[in-house]
Structure formats: C-alpha cells, structure tokens
C-alpha cells in the first residue's frame, strides 16, 4: 500500500494512512479481555459514530502472526493482530478510538505498546483517555451490571459520581481501597498519568460464575451508557441490545440446567445488591463459593463446558 509506505514512521512503529487535524480529542481504547466487555463497548462506539481509520501500530513488534498465505512456493502475505486508530470529527470535540485485537504477551511488550498509544494521544493533544474492561464480581447475570470507575486523577471522581450506575472500588463491600486493574486497560491509565494525561478506566461488572471467555455484551452496554454520557454522544445500540437478548437467553438456558441447590445459592447474589451487603453472611458466602467451585470442577471432569 503506497499510502502507508509514504507515511510510515519508523521511530514510532506506527503507520499513518491519514493525518487528520483534530480538535480537543478524547481517546477511547479497547482491548479484548474478560467477557470482552471493553472490546465490545469500544467496537460498538466506533461503528455507531462511523469512525474512520487513520493509523495502525505495526504488529510484528508485539505479536506472533496469526495467519500466513503461501502460493506456489512463494510467501504471499502475513497477518498480525491489528492495533488500529480511528477518528471522528465532531462539533463538540473530536474522538480518537483505538482498538487492539489482542493484548501483547509479557509486561515489557505491553508497556511498549502502551507507549505507542500514548504517543498518538500526545501528538493529537488528547485531553482525556478512556479505557474499558471487566470487573469480575458477585453479580447475578439477570441484573444490570454496574460500572466500576477508576480515574488517574482525584478531581475526576465528582464528575464520575454524577453518572448513574457508576461505583468506585471503595464502595464495594469487602474491597479495600486498593486493588489492581490487570492488562493494558489498567496499565494505560497509569502510564497516561505519568505523561500528564487524565484518564479513567470504566469496567462493566461480569458475573464471577461465568467462564471468562463468554462474551458479555450486557456489561458493555452499561459501560457504553456511562461512556456516551461522558463524551456527549448519542449511540445507536440496537444491535448490541439484540445481542444482549441472545446472550441472556443462552446463559439462562445453561442456568436452568445446573442443580437446583446451586441455583438457589446463586440466586442469593441478587440479595447482596438489593439489600445491604451483610444479608449474606461470611459462612453463606464461603459455602456459595465452595459450591460454585465444586460444580465447575465437576463439570470439568465430565469434559463439559462450565457456565
């Protein structure tokens, strides 16, 4: 691609397809992770606003290729997981959307990739960066997931609190004021802070009894509600809603197949959210976790997939 070659910037490891002029952009980043909550949210946003691709990070430095094509004894093409930047011009502040198809393996690689993303943020003078992920927690899949918010600046807390359905880690029973966001969704907001950019991570709740590989669009929907309010964007999430209906139906189907006693235990999770956290005693909690664990282990032994 000639265009790509023309703008290839070796020192940054970034290939520019276009160099848009952007005004006061905010950057929104998403990588795959537990339940693909952040990834789905950011992809839905990109599609909804009709963002346009303008740059990508060279994959060879970070990833093993996922596909190769060889024709008649000659190497034709190779494909790496993509890490792509998109832009959308708007009256009330432009958007840069970054979508990474894979997270690099290893801390050094993650840090390097994060640096590349921040290089773009700094180049375009982004005023704020959002990342998104999952918060694995005691939530029932029939309930609306809340959004855990972690900013890198304390002055963002009051602003976040104004948005419905948001929660801070210190609000969660049993959680101390300290924790960790694993992966690039967490690392990036820390790195952004180091480079003087305010950033926050929005994490949709994910039921702890679901397999982490299960795509959980319901969590993405909650994240998008907060995100769209914070960036003042009306989103078309019709497709996402239909996906949620399908996923809910699938999870419910499996849920009905699990033993009644275990289901009763899981049902108690609803009480935690509807009443005070103390409605489930420590013993009950311990029993619940043990039963879930035993059930999942039993399923593994049977060679069946867990819910």
């Amino acid at each position, binding site marked *: 691609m000639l265009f790509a070659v023309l703008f290839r910037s070796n020192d940054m490891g970034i290939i520019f397809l276009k160099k848009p002029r952007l005004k006061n952009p905010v950057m929104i980043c998403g990588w795959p992770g537990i339940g693909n909550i952040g990834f789905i949210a950011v992809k839905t946003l990109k599609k909804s606003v009709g963002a346009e691709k303008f740059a990508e990070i060279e994959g060879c430095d970070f990833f093993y*290729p996922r*596909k*190769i*094509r*060889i024709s*008649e*004894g*000659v*190497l034709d093409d*190779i494909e790496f997981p993509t890490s792509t930047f998109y832009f959308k011009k708007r009256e009330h502040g432009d958007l840069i959307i970054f979508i990474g198809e894979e997270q690099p393996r290893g801390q050094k690689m993650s840090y390097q990739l994060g640096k590349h993303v921040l290089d773009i943020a700094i180049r375009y003078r982004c005023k704020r960066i959002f990342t998104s992920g999952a918060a694995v927690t005691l939530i029932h899949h029939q309930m609306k997931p809340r959004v855990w918010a972690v900013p890198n600046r304390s002055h963002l807390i009051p602003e976040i609190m104004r948005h419905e359905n948001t929660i801070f880690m210190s609000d969660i029973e049993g959680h101390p004021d300290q924790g960790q966001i694993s992966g690039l969704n967490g690392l990036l907001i820390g790195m952004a802070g180091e480079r003087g950019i305010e950033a926050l991570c929005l994490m949709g709740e994910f039921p702890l009894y679901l397999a982490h590989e299960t795509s959980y669009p319901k969590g993405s929907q909650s994240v998008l509600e907060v995100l769209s309010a914070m960036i003042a964007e009306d989103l078309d999430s019709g497709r996402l809603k239909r996906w949620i209906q399908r996923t809910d139906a699938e999870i419910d189907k499996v849920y009905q197949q699990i033993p009644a006693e275990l289901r009763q235990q899981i049902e108690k999770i609803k009480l935690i959210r509807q009443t005070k956290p103390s409605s489930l005693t420590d013993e009950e909690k311990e029993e619940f976790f043990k039963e879930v664990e035993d059930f999942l282990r039993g399923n593994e032994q049977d060679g069946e997939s867990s819910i």
Partner: protein
Amino acid sequence: MKKPAFIIGWKSKDVGGIGSGTVDFLIEKLGGQKIGKVSPVDFFSLSGVNIEYDIATMQECIFYACEDRNLLILKSDEPDKDRFAFLNLLLDIAESFQTKEFYTINGNPALISHAQTRQMLSVCNEPRFMKTIEEYGLSKLSYEGPPALSSFLLWTAQRRTIKGSSIWINIPFYLTQLQDFQSLYLVLDFFNRKYSLHLSLDELNAAIQNQNVRIEKFLEEVPEIRKNIHLLESGIMLDNKERIHIMQQFYDFFRKTGK
C-alpha cells in the same frame, strides 16, 4: 567464510528429528566449529528446565561455521518470547557474515507409511529463489493458516531483502517423534547437490536399512498395526484414535530398543 549459505535447524517441535538431524550431521561430518551463541536470557523462558524424551535439556541457540564448505549453521530452540527481535538478531548475524541465502529445515506430519516416498516442498520469500530450488526436485508449497516460526523468519527476512527458503518434508506420522532417516537422507542429498559438499551418505543409507528392519520386526510383533499401515498405503484414512495408538506403539517400541 565468503557469503556462506546459512542452514537453520530448530530443536523444538522437531518433527521426525529433521531439523536437528540435518544440522548435527553437517556439523559432525564437515567439522563445524562452534563460533557463538545467543544468550537465552532475553528469548527463552528460564523459569525451569525442559524435559525432552525424559532428559532435562537447556534451551540453546548456537552458531557453527564449516569454513571449508562455506556454511554457517544454527542449531536452536524456538524462542518463547520476543520472537520478532530474536529473528532479527539471527538475521543481523547472518548479515554480518554477508550470507547469500538461508534455509530452515522442517518436518510435516503426513498420513503416509514409512515405505512411501517422502515429498520435499519449499517456500521461498523470493520467486527467483524458488525457481532455483525447484531445479533440485523440490515442489512448490501452497498453504494458508497459522504460521510456523520458519515462515515468520522468511517474512522478517523478506523485509530486509535477505533471500531464504523453508524446506518442508513429509514425515510418516508415526515417525514424527523419532528420527526419520529416509527424510534426513533426502534433505542432506539436496544440500550435497546444491553446495557440492561431497558428503558421503552411506552411513545414512545403512541407518535407513536398519530402521526398516526394525520397523518390520515391530510390525511382525503387532499384526494389527501392520494391517492399519496397509490400509493407509491403499489410501484408506485412519481415524484419530487409531493414529494416536500407532504413534504410541511405535514410540514405546523404539524407546525400549533405542531410537
């Protein structure tokens, strides 16, 4: 050395022992001298030691030179991390020797019997180089799917305009964990002709005969496997369970009686 050819044998995932078998033979017969190694710290997981065929084995990446025949040889494990940097490092070293071309040697498990002809295929990162290789009887490979490290190396070298080829030889699936001497012969014969190495392959011919005798002895003991191998030769596919059973039986027999 003056613009040497560079031959790479991967020790990891070495189907039919073809990668390490080729470079070991060349190093031994051509008096290859160890000239350097890549430190494992940056590219290999050092959280413990690997066990291969019951033997603790440290991962390694060692360069040898066969000055008389103008060959640069690498015997290496596949790296666990920073693969792109690792491949570029190998190419830096190749460039420092002004290497004219490189080869990686790979085995491909195939549903063929030990008595059937092994097909030797090649993929190059430069069409003219493939034409040269074809003249030595190698077929053109076509493929689409996940890449092996050899293919990633070809692509990395292509970006640096370094000419290279991956040679892939079909190995009977039940010999993938053993040394397939027939395949080894074919690969070495190719290098012998291509670079006028004047290597005697008599020793390998003897090893092939010996291996065939041992396989025959084994098949006499287990007629059920002989029957399945006959089915395979007549073009009837075996199911996965049957294949695994045959592989296991072969491996156990050869391990007990020496590989």
